[in-house]
């Protein structure tokens, strides 16, 4: 499985990358929505996208709109953010997000959500 982590925080990038790779998942990093969009447009094949909300250049919701408009991917997108208001959650679900991880989270939440979306269990 290959997952794209779209987050401007270097710390989150490093932590999530290490956690995913420890269970044999390949990771592609992107520091904002624009970089992620360019990678998809260049043909990068991804099984799942973990997407932050607040990022410079292009934020999560704008990324959702852009990939939909340009049909850049059919992979499931999971929001991974400190935003946690029900109306915010609803907003991105309407834009195509299939799951939602609220920061802070633990690795079992992360792998639990990956399993919910892909059906693949990474439980240890």
């Amino acid at each position: 499985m290959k997952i794209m982590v779209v987050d401007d925080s270097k710390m989150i990038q490093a932590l999530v990358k290490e956690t995913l790779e420890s269970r044999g998942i390949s990771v592609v990093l992107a520091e904002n929505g624009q970089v992620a969009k360019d990678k998809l447009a260049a043909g990068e094949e991804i099984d799942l996208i973990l997407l932050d909300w607040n990022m410079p250049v292009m934020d999560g919701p704008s990324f959702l709109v852009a990939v939909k408009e340009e049909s850049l991917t059919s992979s499931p997108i999971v929001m991974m953010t400190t935003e946690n208001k029900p109306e915010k959650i609803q907003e991105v679900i309407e834009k195509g997000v299939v799951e939602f991880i609220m920061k802070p989270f633990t690795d079992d939440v992360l792998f639990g959500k990956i399993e919910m979306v892909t059906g693949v269990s990474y439980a240890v």
Partner: protein
Amino acid sequence: MQFNNKFYEEFSNYIFKHTGIHYAEANYYQLDARINKLMKFLETDDENEVLKAIQGGFIKDQRVHQMIVDLATNNETYFFRDPGVFNAIKSELVPQWLEKIDQGGKVSVWSCASSSGQEIYSIMMNIEEKRPGGIEKGFEFKATDISNSILEKAKSGVYSQLEAQRGLPIMMLTKYFKQTDESNWSIRDSFPKKVDFSNFNLLTGAYPVAQFDLICCRNVLIYQKKENKAMVLGKLYQSLKPGGLLLLGNTENTFGLNKDFQGQTIGGVAMFQRPLEEKKGAA
């Protein structure tokens, strides 16, 4: 902090006597954090004070007793733990239950070591998914645990943001919960209101007779000695209605412990049935 063996022995004996959970000598180190927590509660750094508190296996202060029970029991749980089990409940059992209720029957479900309530609430969400408002008609839900503090939490129906994310799909969170503050989510009021919560010790409690369609006792007996497992299984059998089902943890079964249960595979999940027609001489 390390303690002497005599102390560990007294402490683990107390736990065994009151909860049936057996700490072998090799596992005494697992008690350290629990003992330290208790000493903090008692505001002492003298282990003799703890010994005094549990002397003769009797604790005068009920709060200390509850605290030791809380410390000894494993409250690990989350929503829809083992998704396969809940898929089977939703696709196989819930339709049968609803049919039974539509024909005028009653359906009772018991989560016998409910911890903070995620198991019983997951079952209730499954029913609501099949029939909105379904839990209100014909169902009875019972949730018991040995720990009062965890029962209080179950009753409150309030979960931290982290707990609310464990096992729970976001659509279910937004549908059945409301955000109470920045970091907590509370389940729909109608859920805890429908559940009969009470303290129950599986080793010593008086079991209801022939009352339940489903009993969940998942990953509870793994901590018990063989004779206690057999005893509890025998009593759970009697608590089931004929035709009722017992759900154990994925790695558990009744083999070698109880001959009356009939193994069934329902929706790909092993369940243990009290047969409708009992064998002659069965308990």
